[in-house]
């Protein structure tokens, strides 16, 4: 139990009167790489937002490192070591690239500062070239790098990436996947949400598939790769 980083149990989340999550349980261990899959509107983002304190689940519990965080404010969950790269990126266009990164900098939960400004610059040399540009002047791919770099500046134990490659040019997509792989290899646990199932299953150890707000599969990514029927049934268009 102690090594369980983030654990959600029996989450029921509503938007107004529409019931989005129907008792979802979800957990991720330290250093684990997990793919979260499902068609559009199946509750992936709602699940993430419920775990981050951005949406209040009506039932269920959320624990981070074993501490109950179900009613915690979002910043407390972030301070417990969870970083979030939201769908649509969420950069601050009114801040420069440098400011976007610097404002987020802090030591991790255990005090370590592996990810510094310099290291983010090494990981994303393109950001270095545009360091004094406004965040809004960057291309989509650069914005995505900035959001990932900014999340790393918080030295998280868990990085949640929601549709990190959406709408990017193929070359950029390749680069983002490379970066995510590098991050995974440093031991930061990752939750990856992406439409590219083969990329997700190649990157992760475990996969969770959501259908209509319920978990229909939770098992090795290897199994998803080898059972095309699973993908066809739950993820195909």
């Amino acid at each position, binding site marked *: 139990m102690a090594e369980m980083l983030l654990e959600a149990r029996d989450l029921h989340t509503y938007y107004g009167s529409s019931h989005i999550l129907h008792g979802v349980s979800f957990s991720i261990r330290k250093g684990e790489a997990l793919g979260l899959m499902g068609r559009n509107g199946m509750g992936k983002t709602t699940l993430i937002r419920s775990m981050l304190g*951005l949406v209040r689940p009506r039932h269920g519990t959320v624990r981070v490192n074993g501490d109950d965080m179900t009613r915690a404010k*979002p*910043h407390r969950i972030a301070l417990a070591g969870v970083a979030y790269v939201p769908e649509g990126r*969420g950069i601050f*266009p009114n801040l420069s690239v440098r400011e976007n990164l610097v404002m987020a900098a802090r030591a991790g939960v255990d005090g370590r500062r592996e990810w510094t400004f310099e290291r983010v610059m090494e990981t994303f040399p393109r950001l270095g070239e545009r360091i004094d540009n406004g965040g809004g002047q960057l291309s989509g791919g650069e914005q995505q790098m900035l959001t990932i770099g900014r999340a790393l500046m918080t030295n998280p134990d868990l990085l949640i990436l929601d549709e990190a490659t959406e709408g990017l040019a193929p070359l950029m997509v390749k680069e983002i996947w490379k970066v995510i792989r590098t991050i995974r290899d440093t031991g930061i646990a990752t939750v990856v949400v992406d439409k590219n199932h083969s990329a997700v299953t190649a990157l992760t150890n475990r996969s969770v598939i959501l259908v209509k707000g319920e978990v229909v599969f939770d098992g090795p990514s290897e199994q998803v790769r080898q059972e095309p029927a699973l993908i066809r049934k739950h993820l195909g268009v």
Partner: protein
Amino acid sequence: MDFTSFLIQILNALQYGLLLFLVASGLTLVFGIMGIINLAHGSFYMIGAYLAFALTSLTGNLMLAIVLGIPLAFGFGALLEKLLFVHLYKRDHLQQVLLTYGLILIFEELRSLTVGDDVHGVAIPDLFSASIALSDNLSYPVYRLVISVVCIALAVGLWWLMQRTRLGMMIRAGSFNREMVQSLGVNIDLLYRTVFALGVALAALAGMLAAPISSVYPGMGGNVLIISFVVVVIGGIGSVWGALVAALLVGFADTFGTILLPELAGLAVYLLMAVVLLWRPEGIFRKG
């Protein structure tokens, strides 16, 4: 008008504009970052002036009164935010206007009950009570220069806070995407409370500084509120830098408008606003 009186008018315009900036900066921050129209902001100016009057009577020295008054005003602002304004963030402007207008009435009534409706004077501290002779019969009071210098220092400090510190970056980021700032581990409730309290403290400080030259009188918050909104609109909502430029413009328009067009005194400021809005409907500086 000879050069010396022209110089005096310039100094007056600067001093008035800079003082206005102190009030307007808080108004523009709270409006631009938290999205709250605070009609009670002028009341904080009035409360500052009365605080200066009360504390100066108590301690015998305006400077001591200001040193005591700033933390009092900051604490008062933080308390108000925690009790009342925190409920306004997700509500529409009508409800904000209703609550903050109600606060004006409450503050005025409380002032009337506790201090009364008389006009009061506050003595200039001995240290700054001198005047600098500019010609045989014209001189300029040192205290007014002190006000300008203090305001310039605060403007620089505020610019530094907003542009050069992580706190300022978080505040600016929060004005764009509150959720994202939270998800990066920033306690945005505390951040907003601090910004609000800072705005209250700045307005109160302006009132305290102005107390000796304008005296302390009922309704003094109302005039300042209106003119501060003019400054915020001209400068561009949310821009501290814009508030500074606009406050100086208003200071000059008001001072020289009164001299050049005495029969239309008071109109110059609104003419200025009309011209700026025709030229740039979003204000001189956009939010940033």
